């Protein structure tokens, strides 16, 4: 209970810090005033229209990616699974880039295109993994995920190279992930797409406990495995796609966060998923704060920050897992 309280306090502090930090240095009292609409017009606009939606978006995106990672780890029974390494993020990114490049729809349609991309990517990953033999080997699955990811990145690179030069830099930065375009609209879009998948994953906590035992034991304990798998892949794709559509490709959150939560709260999903959401949100807010303050006024892509944290953790995990 104390650990949960601690995590909530840290999460709230992170959000507060995230709103206070930025290129325009605003004293804490000014931020508090601006939240309630008092003070200088510019300050109010910066806080209410830029920083608050940005920090909230970073929080929910980080939380969602972490929850998705935890669920995928249970599904394929491998602690190295996460949306980025399984190729879901890459596929979603490709879908989103295609939608933006061909100008097929509004900002609301981009997550849909990204979802289709993510689903296509995971289907391809599965096909590749099964080429190695009739039985699915999760190590091959992860390998296939990395390959599909690289493939998606290559295609995106080609599309971006052929796009008009002025848009090129923005698109590349978007690909690396960031919250610089965050607004109440993008927050709304994300929430609309993410609410049902998130609710489903939270309600499925017990089923996730069982599926992580393996498909047969899960069936014997009462899980409709085929239906659960389909829904998990669908909703993991939707969540990843929603995140990619509003904030680009941000890797390793789904890997690092569930692992950290597992060390403190264990592996049952009723504790793991809420813990992952809170900690993932907190980490993303911090990562975003680092991204926009270290070289201010120039912003680092937040994906760079999460990769700098995530890759060493990945290495440690691989070493531990290989034993």
């Amino acid at each position, binding site marked *: 209970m104390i650990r949960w309280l601690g995590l909530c306090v840290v999460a709230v502090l992170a959000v507060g810090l995230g709103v206070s930090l930025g290129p325009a240095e605003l004293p804490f009292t000014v931020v508090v005033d601006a939240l309630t609409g008092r003070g200088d017009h510019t300050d109010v606009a910066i806080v209410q229209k830029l920083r608050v939606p940005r920090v909230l978006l970073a929080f929910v995106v980080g939380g969602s990616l972490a929850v998705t990672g935890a669920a995928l780890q*249970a599904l394929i029974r491998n602690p190295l699974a996460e949306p980025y390494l399984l190729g879901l993020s890459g596929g979603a990114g490709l879908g989103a880039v295609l939608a933006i490049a061909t100008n097929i729809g509004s900002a609301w349609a981009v997550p849909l295109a990204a979802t289709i991309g993510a689903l296509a990517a995971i289907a391809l990953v599965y096909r590749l993994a099964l080429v190695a033999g009739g039985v699915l080997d999760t190590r091959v699955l992860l390998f296939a995920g990395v390959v599909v990811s690289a493939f998606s990145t290559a295609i995106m690179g080609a599309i971006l190279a052929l796009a008009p030069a002025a848009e090129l830099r923005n698109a590349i930065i978007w690909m690396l992930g960031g919250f610089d375009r965050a607004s109440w609209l993008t927050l709304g879009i994300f929430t609309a797409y993410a609410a049902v998948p998130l609710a489903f994953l939270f309600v499925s*906590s017990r089923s996730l*406990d069982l599926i992580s035992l*393996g498909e*047969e*034991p899960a069936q*014997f304990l009462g*899980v*409709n495995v085929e239906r659960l798998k389909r829904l998990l892949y669908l909703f993991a794709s939707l969540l990843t796609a929603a995140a990619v559509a509003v904030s680009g490709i941000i890797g390793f959150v789904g890997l690092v966060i569930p692992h950290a939560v597992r060390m403190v709260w*264990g592996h049952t999903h009723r504790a793991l998923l809420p813990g992952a959401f809170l900690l993932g949100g907190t980490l993303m807010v911090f990562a975003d704060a680092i991204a926009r303050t270290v070289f201010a006024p120039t912003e680092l892509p937040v994906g760079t920050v999460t990769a700098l944290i995530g890759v060493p953790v990945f290495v440690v995990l691989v070493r531990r897992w290989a034993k």
Partner: protein
Amino acid sequence: MGEVVLSASDLVYRYPGAGSDALSGVAVDVVKGQLVSIVGPNGSGKTTLLRILLGLLHPVAGTVLIKGRASESWSRKEMARLVGVVPQREVPVFPLRLKQAVMLGRYPHLGPLGFVKGKDHRAVAQAMDRCDISHLSDRWTTTLSGGEWQRVRIARALAQDPEVLVLDEPTAGLDIKHEMEVFELAALLARDEGMASIMVTHQVNLAARFSNQIIVLDAGRTIAAGVPTEVLNAEIIERVFDWPVNLFTWKGIPQFLPKRTDES
């Protein structure tokens, strides 16, 4: 004879693309309060039979009735409230506390939101008690010995509060003490708690001593079925396992000692 809980007859199964039937004309009746053992060499169809009984494979011909109802018509959740299974191999990836692992057996009884109630805790405590693992309840599943892990999995199946208990080679890799504990427990659950139990095993001698009924499978066919003292003999065992044996009787129960090639 008690109530027949699980009944299969005339089962035929052929794996897609296979040249011959994996099972042909096999029948099983699992009765309340009885332990039924299925023995036979590797590849004789034991696992196929179990998979059909548990609804994971659909037979080409024949029927499986669970409590008089066709097995296909049970949802996985309904089935899990009735049939507890201890699968053959299971390697934990994400360690749980032992008590959490046994609690997974309550899943088919939980509501849609998965809240655990007092009766679930009681069922788990009772199952752990039954399998003599209560003193280990805070241990991580990855730190258990083979025998302890097997008892945890049996306790998880018992926490399902089933009427049928299915054990798939539950003593593989266990030493004499742990092997005996599993057989003792299976026989005890049948005798004292009226469990209808079915066990696939390679331990022909222990199966003969502990089971009420034994089914000998070879190449997908039933070679012998019935009370061990009545249906087992050296000729059947030699033929099915393709190895010469000496026959002994211990308290009237046939026991088989394989011969060395330099013994006549």
